[in-house]
């Protein structure tokens, strides 16, 4: 299966592990990731204002590229996925926004591309059962807490990935890899995001709520899909390690490098 891949800026720098193990796992699962040529930063956050045009053009360009190749546009960073998916939705549903965006781009684009997070690709295109078949080193006995944060699931009317209040997609992946998912209440609450820049105390309070709750629920490790979530949880002193879900995936598939 060939898909278009939008890695995003952080995956080229601070979150290289997220990128690297996405690629390695994809290889094992017969997914060819074709990196979008000359992609540009998604901007990190989706500006909800309908009259914000320029900030969404980089996403539209990537979407348009994928649509031209008739490929699914896959990203693995929660933030990139959120921005791209919401932009695509705005192109489909907001005529005025669509019209104005199309004034800036060469070829007309109307939201034709299919956008998927790498997790959805594994669930809906590959199938978690097929992923399970490729597991070489089961995560048996490992208690893993999925941390969704806000961007993967919300707004659910647009993201349509999973139940926004009681999601199962990462838990199901953990189970497929042989691990034991740990459910805890703050897995879909915000880590503090970029408030870390201005008000680290606020980010600390929120992150601690998440990591304490996960640890109290018996988790040994937290997985996430977002570099900023990982930063906040780790920076604020999580008792248990925080890794990208792709690292666990690669480990189970037997393609993780030893540190």
């Amino acid at each position, binding site marked *: 299966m060939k898909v278009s891949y939008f890695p995003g800026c952080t995956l080229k720098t601070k979150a290289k592990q997220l990128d690297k193990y996405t690629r390695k796992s994809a290889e094992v699962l017969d997914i060819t990731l074709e990196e979008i040529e000359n992609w540009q930063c998604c901007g990190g956050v989706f500006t909800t204002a309908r009259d914000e045009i320029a900030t969404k053009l980089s996403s539209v360009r990537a979407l348009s590229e994928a649509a031209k190749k008739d490929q699914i546009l896959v990203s693995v960073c929660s933030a990139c996925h959120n921005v791209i998916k919401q932009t695509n939705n705005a192109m489909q549903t907001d005529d005025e926004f669509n019209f104005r965006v199309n004034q800036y781009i060469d070829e007309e684009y109307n939201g034709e591309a299919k956008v998927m997070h790498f997790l959805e690709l594994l669930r809906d295109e590959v199938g978690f059962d097929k992923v399970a078949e490729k597991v070489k080193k089961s995560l048996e006995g490992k208690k893993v807490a999925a941390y969704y944060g806000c961007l993967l699931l919300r707004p659910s009317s647009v993201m349509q990935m999973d*139940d926004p*209040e*009681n999601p199962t997609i990462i838990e199901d992946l953990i189970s497929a890899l042989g691990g034991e998912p740990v459910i805890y*209440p703050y897995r879909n609450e915000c880590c503090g995001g970029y408030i870390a820049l201005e008000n680290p105390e606020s980010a600390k309070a929120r992150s601690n709520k998440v990591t304490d709750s996960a640890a*109290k629920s018996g988790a040994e490790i937290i997985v996430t899909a977002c570099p900023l979530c990982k930063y906040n949880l780790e920076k604020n002193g999580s008792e248990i390690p925080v890794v990208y879900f792709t690292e666990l995936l690669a480990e189970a598939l037997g393609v993780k490098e030893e540190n």
Partner: protein
Amino acid sequence: MQRIGVFVCWCGSNIAGTVDVQAVSDALQNEPGVVFSTNYQYMCSQAGQDIIKNAIAEHKLTGIVVCSCSPRMHEATFRKTAAAAGLNPYMVEIANIREQCSWVHKDMPTGTEKAIILGKAAVAKVNLNAPLKPGESPVTKRALVIGGGIAGIQTALDIAEAGFPVDIVEKKPTIGGKMAQLDKTFPTLDCAACILTPKMVDVAQNENIRIFSYSEVEEVGGFVGNFDVKIRKKARFVNEDICTGCGICTEKCPQKKVPNEFNLGMDNRRAIYIPFAQAVPKVATIDADYCTMLKTGKCGVCSKVCTAGAIDYTQKDEIIEEKYGAIVAATGFNPISMDKFDEYAYNQSKDVITSLEFERLTNAAGPSAGKLVRPSDGKHPHTIVFVQCVGSRCAACAEKGKEYCSKICCMYTAKHAMLTRDKYPDTDVYVFYIDVRTPGKAFDEFYRRAVEEYGVHYIKGMVGKVSPEGDKLMVQASDLLANKQLHIEADLVVLAAAIEPDKSARPLATQLTASMDTNDFFTEAHPKLRPVESPTAGVFLSGTCQGPKDIPETVSQASAAAAKVIGLLAKDKLTGNPCVAGSDELMCNGCSSCERVCPYGAITYVDKEFRMPDRTTRVRRVASVNEAVCQGCGACTVACPSGAMDLKGFATKQIIAEVDAICR
């Protein structure tokens, strides 16, 4: 040539305010066939009707046009007036110059012009009208009540009391419905079972009432006064006539792990069961999904212990066919699923429950024998948070909640809060509300007592998230009046789930050709003036299948529906609507198009002998309309490719004449 009279009504200033009524009656005076034209302040009044009667006699009128309000309002009135003066009532036409003219136009010239045009169209039609005589059909003096909750029970009892036989069809093994699951009832706090079960016994003992429990309506045919209904009596694998309800089988059955639906799955029952002690009929039912004998052929314990010999593993579903004069829908409600509201963690913690589950938890016959304990660990909860409007008044997303107010939650939550404080004064009780809605006799007083005498903390605001942490539930909520976000450590959270019509209502509505609203509540014939009748003749509505209601309101409406049924069954014959379809057999080519589109099954095909011009005879297949079944919808007249099918009183040539008059 007809001799037509025109009567223009002012309707006070309703019409005369925007329509020059004198100009209208003057203009119509010159229409073909019109021999008399006048106007009057209130044509529907006695004096107005006398004007019509006198004119019919004096001018030997053969048809009349009344320019007034909608025919829905007064067509029947003026038809009666005409009949009293010896004119065939179907020679009356109404031109609607109020709802469709004076009320929608603002200036007099436009209103007047349109009124004249509408009047001309009516005159053109009357010119082609012919006297019609309605047929009559007999009335089967038996009623069917679908649903055996408090609504169905009350309706059936009232009809039976008037001397008519009634059948109740209930899909569960017992009648009683939701009310049987309730503990106490607001605002008087009498025990639900104490007031319901005597009524259930009355039903069982009433000679005029038959109960088909564990049964469903399979098919409905016929029409008002003459419904043909097929009822599927599901196999319960117990002979109802023999079973004494002793309950030995339900104690000995080795299959103990069946979720008990009566207690909302909070405990288990056996595969053979009697839903609750006061069930009516008090007979056992085998749950085929769990019975080892039925699934594997090995067991048979219930049969061995049954001294009456009532167990019958070979029992099959039975189809009962019966005729009814009237049908009452009383299919009731259910709380909506909490799956889409997991910010309240219903699926993540056993200690987040719905209000109906709370009823069972506090009921002496419930899973905890009436002791208020946490489902997770059986401990007494010290802090309880009630959340109102979960899924009610929710317009964000149709698949999530309901846009309407569920109406009963404010009162039952006040009841739960008050009873908890009364019985367990060591418990802190919080109620989060958006608005407290307590219209009703002694309702607001009841709610205020919960606050003022029982010390329930009512907080204006909503809960945003419930987080199960250890054995506590962290409740994050807003207190809008204090402008604070609250964090409450609770032991139990109770969700006032919105209510929705039972899922069986939608297919039933299709069978009954009764209409429903977008929420699957049955639609009433008129929201104010005909609240217990469905628009389909002979079908009546009782209880929450029509809209959210509490018990007092349900019982009132159930009795009202019964009164309507009694009124119908008291008649020996029903006068039909003569405006039905009829086929011109000479033009009919036997194609079956009309038969296929008829929603009432009123058209059949017959082979008929026709004399040909050369004096031979030929048998041709032609359409035949059952006038008693036809509702006059006209679908067949447009489907007929050869123009053979026409609607009496609304013939194609009459409609064309109206259109011509408008376009002239």
